């Protein structure tokens, strides 16, 4: 590392920061006050420069700058630059005003970056986290992970001077950069752009310049401007250029409110410094010269615990305090910090086994305090967030604007204009915008009547309308993008449920979303994989099959991403089919599940390459499992028969293995439910059943009878008549059964009688009418 990067007396001072680091924010302030620069150049979207004044208004933090684009395939994407009070970039803006420096953002506009597809948090620190240097350094310093390493090196020690902080961050980032296997072309382009901005400022500014950027970029900028060798090797810069396969056709940038909770929830590529509640407090305490941050936060956590009905006694608190201080000492820290408190509570208060991915409620309360609960708000007079403007524009374009008297709107989804309106309404519903409610319409889940696809919405102005629009602005700049983000968030909040995943997908289809939501599909796939409940997976299978195969109106038919999810669900269903055990009282669901599996295989075999042989193997094992319920075995046999994977001899063999009086009816129920057609076409099966029943003595017959009745109720009267004829034909002594003659009048009378009967049942609340069990 070239030593002069540490020189803070030169014309251009490079201030390396980690975004959302209070210590770096303090460093920026200290250097600005020391040097009184003419200009402060900040890593931020340069297309916001003309509107920097908007940031001076009295906003309530956290807020974010939103940059959004519309691409040539008409999708919209957005990225955000969030600011908390302790953000180095925010403090740089503030201190520029205090010392009379000219502040400017110098980063490439987001719309010129190639990363639309992946990263939408522009102040994430992926480069720092992913470096191979970090694990080595962690081991050397005896800390567990990057966040602890950063805290130990930079945040915790209040006695560190600005010069020390500057040197530590430069050293850390230099080594991260020097050990990087690859620097992305996008980073190089951004750095070239930033270097050009710095050069032009050097040409015009009449005094020192502070350059506040992510530490990862500081040395690269320094090297370019001073013509010294960069930290990384030449090979690391040799990555082929990423092509922008999508071109923005429209772009914009605006302020929007933000929230602690959202900042804290970022993970993976998007991850930045978590725990905004903790660092806000640490920042405020440092500024006030207080060193008892952990005690204040502990008090808050205890209040939170008590609010949740948990007890934390004085003795417990003494133990936590002692333990936290001992941990800080063991870790070589001058002050108790975030992880020490977490560990102290984990160690002293939790008296049971912690499962790897479940957290204890006490710990949850502490983490809630660390997460923070602030929600940002834009100052009066700020332009409304882009989402709010987009919502107004969409409502106006589709004549959906809420009026003070509420109205009902009926939409026929087959009409393109109505479909578009329905999609806007569903997006609003997903975002929880007040005043729009779907009252009734096509039942997508029961799918009993799909003759017309329609909806009725209740639309009316609600006093919460504007507030809910602004609140939703944290999800994105445009309605579609925000609704997608909200769905992804909902999916992330679920743990495992294929059924709920399918409902989310239905929501996405109703709102016309999802074609671009790779993250949503990834999450839905995970939900299906995690689900261990056969019935939930089977229900999801039914929904997905319907969407993929039949749902024309919403444009879901044949969508490749739904197909992939369908395959995943199908495979999961086969997987769980064998671990079914002995489900009691869920016979109907079970038979529906088998039917859904067979239908999916038949419909998807050619289109999706589903493996019929695999299904047959699973069903074969299920049919042969002597420990399984006869109903399951019968259904498996029936499914095999329908799929053409079992001959009638095999069916008779399976029948023979479930021939006991208490089993026969259940077996046949399963068989008939799945192979109703085949059963009628094979008189030898009827004869075999007949032989079995004739072999029962009176007691056995009475035992078998109720289940047998249920089994044969799967056939219509005409089918039963046909079966009876087949049976009698084989019996030479029996008289032939007369033809079943049913005239229209008789049929009408029968229907009317049945309707009266069901009506009576429903009226007295007995087994709930036509849909009852």
């Amino acid at each position, binding site marked *: 590392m070239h030593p002069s990067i540490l020189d803070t007396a030169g014309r251009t001072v490079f201030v390396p920061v980690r975004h959302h680091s209070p210590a770096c924010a303090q460093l920026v302030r200290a250097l600005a006050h020391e040097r009184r620069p003419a200009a402060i150049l900040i890593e931020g979207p340069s297309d916001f420069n003309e509107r920097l004044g908007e940031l001076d208004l009295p906003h309530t933090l956290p807020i974010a700058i939103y940059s959004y684009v519309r691409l040539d395939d008409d999708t919209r994407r957005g990225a955000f630059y969030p600011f908390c009070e302790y953000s180095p970039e925010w403090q740089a803006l503030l201190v520029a005003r205090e010392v009379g420096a000219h502040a400017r953002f110098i980063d490439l506009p987001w719309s010129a970056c190639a990363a639309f597809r992946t990263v939408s948090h522009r102040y994430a620190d992926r480069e720092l986290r992913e470096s191979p240097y970090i694990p080595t350094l962690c081991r050397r310093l005896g800390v*567990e992970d990057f966040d602890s390493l950063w805290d130990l090196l930079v945040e915790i020690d209040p006695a560190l001077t600005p010069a020390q902080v500057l040197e530590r961050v430069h050293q850390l980032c230099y080594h991260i950069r020097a050990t990087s296997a690859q620097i992305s072309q996008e980073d190089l382009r951004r750095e070239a752009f930033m270097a050009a901005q710095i050069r032009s400022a050097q040409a015009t500014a009449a005094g020192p310049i502070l350059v506040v950027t992510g530490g990862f970029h500081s040395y690269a900028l320094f090297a370019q401007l001073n013509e010294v060798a960069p930290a990384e090797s030449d090979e690391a810069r040799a990555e082929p250029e990423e092509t922008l396969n999508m071109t923005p056709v429209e772009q914009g940038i605006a302020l929007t409110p933000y929230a602690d909770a959202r900042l804290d929830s970022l993970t993976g590529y998007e991850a930045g410094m978590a725990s905004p509640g903790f660092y806000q407090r640490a920042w405020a305490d440092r500024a006030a010269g207080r060193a008892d941050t952990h005690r204040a936060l502990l008090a808050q956590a205890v209040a939170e615990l008590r609010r949740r009905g948990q007890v934390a006694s004085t003795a417990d608190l003494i133990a936590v305090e002692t333990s936290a201080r001992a941990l800080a000492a063991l870790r070589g820290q001058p002050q108790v910090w975030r992880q020490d408190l977490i560990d102290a509570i984990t160690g002293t208060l939790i*008296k049971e086994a912690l499962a790897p991915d479940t957290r204890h409620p006490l710990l949850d309360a502490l983490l809630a305090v660390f997460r923070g609960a602030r929600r940002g708000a834009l100052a009066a007079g700020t332009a409304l967030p882009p989402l709010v403007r987009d919502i107004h524009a969409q409502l106006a374009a589709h004549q959906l604007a809420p009026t003070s008297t509420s109205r009902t709107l009926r939409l026929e989804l087959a009409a393109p204009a109505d479909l578009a309106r329905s999609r806007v309404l569903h997006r609003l519903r997903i975002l929880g915008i007040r005043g729009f409610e779907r009252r009734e319409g096509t039942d997508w889940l029961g799918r009993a009547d799909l003759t017309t696809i329609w909806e009725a919405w209740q639309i009316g102005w609600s006093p919460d309308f504007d507030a809910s629009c602004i609140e939703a602005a944290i999800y994105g700049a445009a309605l579609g993008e925000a609704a997608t983000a909200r769905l992804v968030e909902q999916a992330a909040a679920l743990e495992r449920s294929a059924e709920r995943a399918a409902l989310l997908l239905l929501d996405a289809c109703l709102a016309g979303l999802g074609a671009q939501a790779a993250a949503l599909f990834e999450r839905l796939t995970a939900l299906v994989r*995690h689900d261990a409940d056969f019935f939930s997976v089977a229900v999801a299978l039914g929904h997905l099959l319907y969407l993929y195969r039949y749902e024309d109106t919403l444009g879901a038919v044949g969508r490749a991403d739904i197909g992939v999810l369908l395959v995943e669900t199908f495979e999961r269903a086969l997987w769980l089919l064998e671990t079914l055990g002995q489900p009691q009282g869920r016979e109907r669901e079970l038979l529906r599940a088998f039917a859904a599996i067979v239908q999916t295989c038949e419909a998807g075999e050619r289109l999706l390459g589903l493996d019929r042989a695999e299904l047959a193997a699973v069903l074969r094992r299920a049919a042969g499992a002597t420990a399984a319920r006869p109903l399951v075995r019968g259904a498996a046999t029936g499914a095999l028969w329908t799929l053409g994977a079992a001959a009638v001899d095999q069916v008779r063999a399976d029948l023979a293995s479930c021939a006991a009086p208490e089993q026969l009816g259940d077996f046949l129920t399963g068989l008939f439910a799945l192979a109703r057609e085949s059963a009628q076409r094979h008189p030898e099966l009827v004869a075999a059943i007949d032989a079995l029943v004739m072999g029962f003595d009176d007691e056995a017959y009475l035992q078998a009878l109720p289940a047998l009745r249920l089994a044969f109720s799967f056939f219509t009267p005409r089918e039963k008549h046909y079966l009876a004829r087949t049976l009698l034909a084989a019996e030479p002594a029996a008289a032939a059964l007369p033809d079943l003659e049913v005239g229209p009048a008789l049929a009408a009378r029968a229907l009317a009688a049945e309707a009266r009967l069901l009506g009576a049942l429903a009226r007295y609340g007995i087994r709930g009418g036509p849909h009852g069990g």
Partner: protein
Amino acid sequence: MTHDDGLAPGRALAEMQRPAAEALYADELARLAVADADAPRPEGWRLTPRSVLTFVLGDAARGISAKFVGSRRLLERCVVALATSRGLMLIGEPGTAKSYLSELLAAAISGDSTLVIQGSAGTTEDAIKYSWNYALLLAEGPTEQALVPAPLYRGMRAGKVVRFEEITRCPLEIQDTLLSILSDRVMAVPERDDSGRMLFARVGFNVIATANTRDRGVNEMSAALKRRFNFETIPPIADIHLEMELVQRETERLLRRSGVPISLPPAILEVLVTTFHELRASKTADGKTLEPLSTAMSTAEAVSVGYAAGIHAYYYDQGSVAPAHLLQSLLGSAIKDAPEDRERLRHYFNHVVKERGGAAWRAFYEARTEL
């Protein structure tokens, strides 16, 4: 290190089936103690808390071997619990190296890991506190000489860490023997006269207990006793690569000790550890949930399966370990006699193993007829 068994130290160590940690790592402990010099530490400790961590987790630069695979944070919490004079309770599934960790901690802190009480349904107060040499008792009365100290008594007297293994297997009233000792740090010996009636614990005394979550569980402990312990859950090894390294190292060590000059080929090792890892976590590498087995499928069991497979291959199959050997010893040792586990294992084969590529996985699948 007071192992007086009449043999020269080097030979004694070599002939011991399983030497205690403080004997096995005497050199490392000595070097750490020298390096610690006069650095401040909790009273009665041989090493500073930082050196205790280094001893357990290892430090390649200083020639200290890594002995335990686990999170540093967890270890820090364990050490702090002991340093702040709270009892330490290590809980977890069987085979997660709880006892080994307690041994390492005791060796590092007190230089003696042999003060062990083995908890069982038959553990009595005698085996915990003290009993009497009845001949001397009759001859001399309740004197110092007549008293036969049990581990707790010895630990208190010498200011050392006492290990209480499988504490939840003891009856509640026996567990509660620890109550007053942990809070007041004093043991009453009512039989003795005034000078010996109270045994006050010397500084450095503490208790590390272990409990198995598959046994009767910590929920049956009295709340009073729970309060006197800090609980730490020792999780199974989360990182499959670390687990592979550990299983490789340990099986090789066992095979070498049995004079079997073979090692598990990497492909076999991968099959073994992946299978254990996935069945234990009830989740496949690509995130599909499995039905949990009733067996813990611990790393220790993976080691013994790998070891048994190696022995089998060496003596009966010309020394080349095949996946079929793994399955045989898996069925013999880990799955034991649980038909439903066998069923779940079959399911795992039909849906997971079947889909895996690579010769070893395919051979493993072919071996399923053993099921």
